[in-house]
């Protein structure tokens, strides 16, 4: 790789000072995002060692710990293998219909994990335990590895592989020694996302009777509203999340992966599969899609047919849809707005302060929805009573949970809008503000929209935080689905499952197409 530092070269020589209001705003957002972590710590200390240790060092916690850790340890490698393999097949081979497969493989993200679980339980009623958990989780979350892996593969410079081959390295060795190491960022990031989802998932595991910390915390909450036992379990869950963050940053390492200098990578020449491997590959991709998308779709349609027109209670369906859209859009807008100061500072004023801001939001938003919700319930009931059970708290919860989704995209968008253009606009007579709005904001708009779409997707499929925080009378799609399917009214739940999938599809597509742009940064 060539040396040189394009980043510093592009940076303006006279560095503008960081606008004070922006810094304050960013600090407030980060401070707010520490509420859940602070809540768990304060409660744990207030509980006292005797009670805490009695609640922590008991067989049930050992059971939950072993379930949860095993789930992560088994599922994540499977997701990595499936995700990378699928990405390589659609990006680097001439598998028939590669373009179609490439999109289809992202579609499982549009199926909420709890809908997936509901479908599989319908098909195989005895599904349960660790095996069931791994199956459902893998099918729901492997695209989180596939998407970044595919995006990275598409941008990798084939010249490096060609050089290796020219030096006499065999094709397998090229794959493992040249390609895979360059995918390290994508794999580490994807694996981290999968593991955090595994820790946070509630509905999917309840259906198949697989107990994790999150399901146990929810049960404790239902038994005591907000008892000490729930908080202690939340404390362990938080430690697990933080451990994952540390592991990921170690795996990620500090090596550079970016291609530096001018020019763009050529597209690699796809490998021929030939008549011997094509059927195997097609079978593999077919089974993967059938299991992750086919089963839920068939199952939902089957329940819709069984339920007939009676399950379409239009008033309830329409009201749930409107409320979900309202929460989704409001949540997406608010999240993008509060993410903006941080993204701005990290792009325009990189340094220790910006790293601190980003790290802060990242740590706290890695916490599962149930922990964030528990914290917000307690804080709002005790200190912010007028806000208790209000829409504001729900939206704040969503913003805390989904801040990184907006942040990653906003940063990418702002980075693609060079300061130079804004300065040029100013030199042509525009005021700084209007130069910013008309140049930078405009260039960053698509990325912002993608970030918003991702947040929206998260909100539509969110369950635990919504259940705990929502104002009285709220019935979102996921709440309705959950309430009906818990009363084993599977047919009644089907319309809500269908709408959630349909609503998530365009967002998934945005995510998929946006990933191509973000991967290079």
């Amino acid at each position: 790789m060539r040396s040189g530092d394009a980043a510093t070269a592009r940076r303006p020589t006279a560095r503008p000072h960081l606008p004070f209001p922006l810094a304050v705003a960013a600090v407030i957002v980060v401070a707010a995002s520490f509420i859940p972590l602070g809540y768990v710590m304060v409660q744990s200390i207030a509980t006292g060692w005797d009670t805490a240790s009695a609640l922590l060092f008991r067989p049930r916690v050992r059971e939950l710990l072993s379930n949860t850790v095993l789930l992560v340890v088994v599922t994540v490698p499977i997701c990595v293998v499936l995700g990378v393999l699928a990405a390589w097949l659609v990006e680097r081979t001439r598998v028939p219909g590669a373009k179609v497969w490439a999109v289809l493989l992202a579609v499982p993200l549009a199926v909420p994990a709890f809908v997936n679980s509901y479908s599989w339980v319908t098909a195989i009623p005895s599904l349960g335990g660790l095996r069931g958990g791994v199956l459902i989780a893998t099918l729901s979350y492997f695209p989180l590895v596939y998407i970044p892996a595919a995006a990275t593969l598409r941008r990798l410079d084939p010249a490096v592989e060609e050089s290796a081959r020219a030096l006499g390295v065999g094709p397998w060795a090229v794959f493992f020694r040249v390609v895979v190491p360059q995918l390290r960022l994508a794999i580490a990031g994807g694996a981290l996302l999968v593991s955090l989802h595994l820790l946070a998932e509630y509905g999917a595991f309840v259906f198949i009777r697989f107990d994790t910390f999150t399901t146990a915390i929810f049960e404790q909450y239902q038994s005591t509203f907000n008892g000490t036992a729930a908080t202690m379990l939340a404390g362990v869950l938080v430690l697990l999340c933080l451990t994952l963050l540390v592991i990921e940053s170690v795996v990620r390492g500090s090596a550079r992966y970016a291609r530096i200098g001018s020019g763009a990578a050529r597209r690699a020449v796809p490998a021929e599969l030939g008549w011997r491997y094509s059927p195997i590959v097609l079978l593999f991709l077919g089974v993967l899609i059938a299991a992750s998308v086919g089963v839920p779709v068939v199952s939902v349609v089957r329940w819709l047919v069984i339920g007939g027109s009676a399950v379409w209670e239009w008033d309830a369906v329409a009201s749930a849809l409107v409320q979900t859209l309202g929460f989704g859009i409001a949540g997406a807008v608010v999240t993008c707005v509060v993410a903006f100061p941080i993204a701005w500072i990290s792009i325009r004023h990189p340094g220790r302060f910006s790293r601190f801001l980003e790290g802060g939001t990242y740590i706290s938003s890695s916490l599962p929805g149930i922990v964030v919700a528990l914290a917000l319930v307690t804080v709002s009931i005790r200190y912010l009573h007028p806000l208790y059970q209000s829409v504001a708290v729900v939206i704040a919860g969503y913003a805390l949970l989904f801040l990184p989704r907006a942040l990653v995209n906003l940063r990418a968008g702002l980075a693609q809008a060079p300061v130079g253009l804004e300065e040029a606009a100013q030199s042509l007579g525009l005021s700084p503000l209007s130069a910013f709005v008309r140049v930078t904001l405009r260039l960053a708009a698509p990325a912002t929209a993608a970030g918003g779409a991702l947040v929206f997707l998260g909100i539509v499929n969110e369950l635990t935080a919504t259940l705990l925080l929502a104002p009285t009378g709220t019935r979102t799609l996921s709440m309705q689905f959950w309430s009906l399917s818990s009363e084993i009214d599977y047919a009644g739940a089907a319309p809500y499952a269908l709408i959630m999938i349909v609503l998530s599809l365009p967002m998934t597509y945005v995510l998929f197409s946006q990933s191509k742009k973000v991967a290079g940064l």
Partner: protein
Amino acid sequence: MRMRIGLMSGVALATAAVLTVAGCSDSGSDNGTDSGAANQITVYNAQHESLTQEWADAFTAETGIEVELRNGSDTELGNQLVAEGDQSPADVFLTENSPAMTLVENAGLFADVHRDVLDQVPGQYRPSSGKWTGIAARSTVFAYNKDMLPDQLPKSLLDLQDPAWKDRWAASPSGADFQAIVSALLELKGEDATRQWLAGMKENVRTYKGNGTVMKAVNAGEIPGGVIYHYYWFGDQAKTGENSNNVALHYFKNEDPGAFVSVSGGGVLQSSTKQDAAQQFLKFVTGQKGQEVLQTGTSFEYTVGSGVPANPKLVPLAELQAPQVDPAKLNSPQVTELMTEAGLL
């Protein structure tokens, strides 16, 4: 210019979204203690959602008073009311069982139930304190798969702790229903026996989420039997029978803890600014029309008030030989503690 229009429409959309969300929840969300329409009450509802919705709709039709439901489980909402204290937005609290009512009563949060409401419900279905009232009742049963357990049924609920029952029965320990049964056991047999039984249960039981799911598993032959309440079976039989055709019910009788009849409760919060409307709602639920919803509706719970007899399909309450338990004595915090200790929660 295009940009500006885009930005404007974005802002407009966002504003509309926020307004929509605010509008949806305006009625019940805000602090609730002083605002909200006068002819609207908020019910913290731990009863089955569909049953309470029937009550609410019928009540609104009769009085014009709107009813907003916040759904949750018995102990969750009970503890939540205690945490909210006198700032609670709730006007009425309805449960499936009585321990959570006692919890709220002990925190001093209930107003006295009006005399004319109490008069509608016989003494054995409400606490002597008059701080809340029974609104319905449900019987504990052992639901079993007819092909798997023909003639070796447990004589007592206590039998289920024996190793012979390992992996042969199911329950939903996170639910308030099951916790009410444990609280009856605690009241009838004492703490040591309960602790021992829970330890045996932890060894033997397979846990599901929800009584309906337990019955479904028994029906599918995943497990021979399960401890649930009676009406899940009757409800499913009245529909397609798809989840209960292979299931039969065993009533323990003999005043066994397993013959426990659990009283569903209703109370009015002291902090409510709509005492009248709240009392009216309770009066409606325990009154003839409310109880007829139980008698003729799809919930198959037992009626307790206004002399309305239970659905004729049910085994009459009088024949169940239920143990005598004062609903006011059932203790939910101790039960959750014991169950947490046993590793069931």
